[in-house]
């Protein structure tokens, strides 16, 4: 069923940003960006926690004062005892809803209303219903899902709000090994936080110099930026009510405003795509997963319509 008033969610900053840069980003988003919810907190690497910690209370205060609804993110990969302890205490102490990004958070959140992040494998309604019964209220679906799966899951899972990643480099993999540190001559245990030097990820090219992936510490993200703009109205019609903007090192206020305008019908999707390319110029856009193709592909709207007409 179509959603009346779709909203925008700001996803967690996946990259390691210097504390002040991180703080200033959130201050500006609080003051200027038309997002209703902000998912915040380290998601990729437990070694990074101390960078944002000193600024966390101020940032939360500013976001709350601006009327943003806070959701705390959790780690995507939990293997060490101190990581387990971190997730446990975050969940025990949080005054805000928490987003589960791995099975441990999922386990600990049972019985409380919570969010499910895009790194938890929800590929079908049966899985979504298991999570809903345990207290999941909002599920951000994995970026790999095609539109056909999204439609099916949303229509077969009552009582849950669904969110889809509409902007940002796609999280593709996570490892115990830090390719980012290794690329700079270190290993994870002695990484010297080199990922801080690449606030938008470290590009990985093929030997034929094709742009391919980007490293973000232990995470690998797409080189392309997921951009669902022409797809928004169809998603709203099939019951997706929330769209996630994943922070990149570009003007995210402009990104949020653009998505808001497209959602409200004030800007045509095609114009929106053109504007998005200006806001985030160095990164090619993709929407292939959504259209059941390779994730790096870009499917232009015009071709969709042509296919529809021929069908």
């Amino acid at each position, binding site marked *: 069923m179509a959603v009346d008033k779709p909203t925008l969610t700001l996803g967690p900053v996946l990259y390691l940003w210097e504390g002040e840069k991180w703080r200033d980003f959130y201050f500006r988003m609080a003051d200027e960006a038309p997002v209703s919810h902000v998912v915040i907190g380290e998601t990729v690497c437990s070694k990074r926690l101390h960078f944002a910690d000193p600024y966390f209370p101020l940032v939360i205060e500013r976001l709350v004062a601006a009327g943003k609804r806070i959701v705390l993110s959790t780690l995507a990969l939990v293997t060490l005892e101190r990581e387990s302890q971190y997730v446990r205490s975050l969940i025990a102490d949080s005054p805000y809803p928490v987003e589960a990004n*791995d099975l*441990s958070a999922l386990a600990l959140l049972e019985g409380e209303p919570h969010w499910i992040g895009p790194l938890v494998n929800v590929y*079908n*309604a049966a899985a979504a219903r298991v999570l809903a019964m345990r207290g999941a209220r909002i599920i951000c679906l994995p970026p*790999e899902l095609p539109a056909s799966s999204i439609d099916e899951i949303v229509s077969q899972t009552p009582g849950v709000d669904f969110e889809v990643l509409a902007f940002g480099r796609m999280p593709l993999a996570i490892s115990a090994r830090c390719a980012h540190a290794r690329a700079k001559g270190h290993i994870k245990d002695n990484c010297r936080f080199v990922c801080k030097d690449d606030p938008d990820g470290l590009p990985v090219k093929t030997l034929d110099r094709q742009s391919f992936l980007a490293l973000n510490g232990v995470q690998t993200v797409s080189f392309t930026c997921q951009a669902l703009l022409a797809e928004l109205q169809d998603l709203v019609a099939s019951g997706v009510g929330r769209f996630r903007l994943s922070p990149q090192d570009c003007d995210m206020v402009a990104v949020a405003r653009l998505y808001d305008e497209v959602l409200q019908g004030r800007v045509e999707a095609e114009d929106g795509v053109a504007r998005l390319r200006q806001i985030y110029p160095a990164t090619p856009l993709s929407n292939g997963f959504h259209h059941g193709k390779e994730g790096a592909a870009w499917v232009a709207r015009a071709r969709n319509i042509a296919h529809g007409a021929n069908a």
Partner: protein
Amino acid sequence: MELICPAGTPAAFREAVEAGADAVYCGFRDETNARNFPGLNFSREELGEAIAYARRKGIKTFVALNTFMRAGHEDLWYQAAADAVHLGADALILADFGLMAHVAETYPEQRLHVSVQASASNPDAVNFLVEAFGAKRVVLPRTLTISDIARLARQIRCEIEVFVFGGLCVMAEGRCSLSSYATGKSPNMNGVCSPASHVRYRQDGSDLVSELGAYTINRFPRGEAAGYPTLCKGRFDIADASGYAFEDPVSLDVMDQIDALREAGVSALKIEGRQRGKAYVAEVVSALRKALDARPEERRALLARLRLLSEGQRTTSGAYEKRWR
């Protein structure tokens, strides 16, 4: 500790049983399992015969249904679970919560193992799967050191199975979309990684170039052995340097750590390789069986010749060794 062996064909299954497996794992010939390769896997009839054969020899059969159900097509997985149960599978190896819930509810007596693809890497995660679905065993992701495993074993309420030999995922299993980013086909959704259907080799001057989808995965100068373009084992450019960005073309071998794994509380050792031929399976299983039964000081010699069977003839301890990170 049990030795859990792969079988991609009925012939490999027999070889594994004969060579000393305690259990053999396999899958149906479709996208319900993570080795959905052309020419591999079992029909219903073949699986029934294999299970009966194994049972006569006192060997168990585990059936992998370890992909994630495609929305709207869940019946394919539900039917596979029903058939595996009725054919007498000793355990189902599952990754998807939705399928775990279905199996736990429909076949409460059926033994359920958590696939490596479920990525249960810590005590809270494992105990959740034990409590929610009655899981009896977890296959741990290749993200843990042996001391991590020992700590985990003390805190969980089910058996532990770990990979000890064969192909090595560099990324946390079941949480990787690199393959579908390049090809549209992924382990989670299609049961394939870096599928052969999307692989191309081309000659470029004196280099042999391997491609996956539209992307160059490696270049091999004349004289260098060309490997299969598995995405995470490719050579890439980062900044101004070229190299194996994620992992070298190596395979996993931690058979020299058998005693440490036993002490850590591991119940079962798993060999990767359902895509391998029956001769490989026979040789690896029989060597590992002998090593497992041998005294520690005899093992080194027994294991040395196995190195020759490994991919690229180079092996790694992977995440079991802390410095790998």
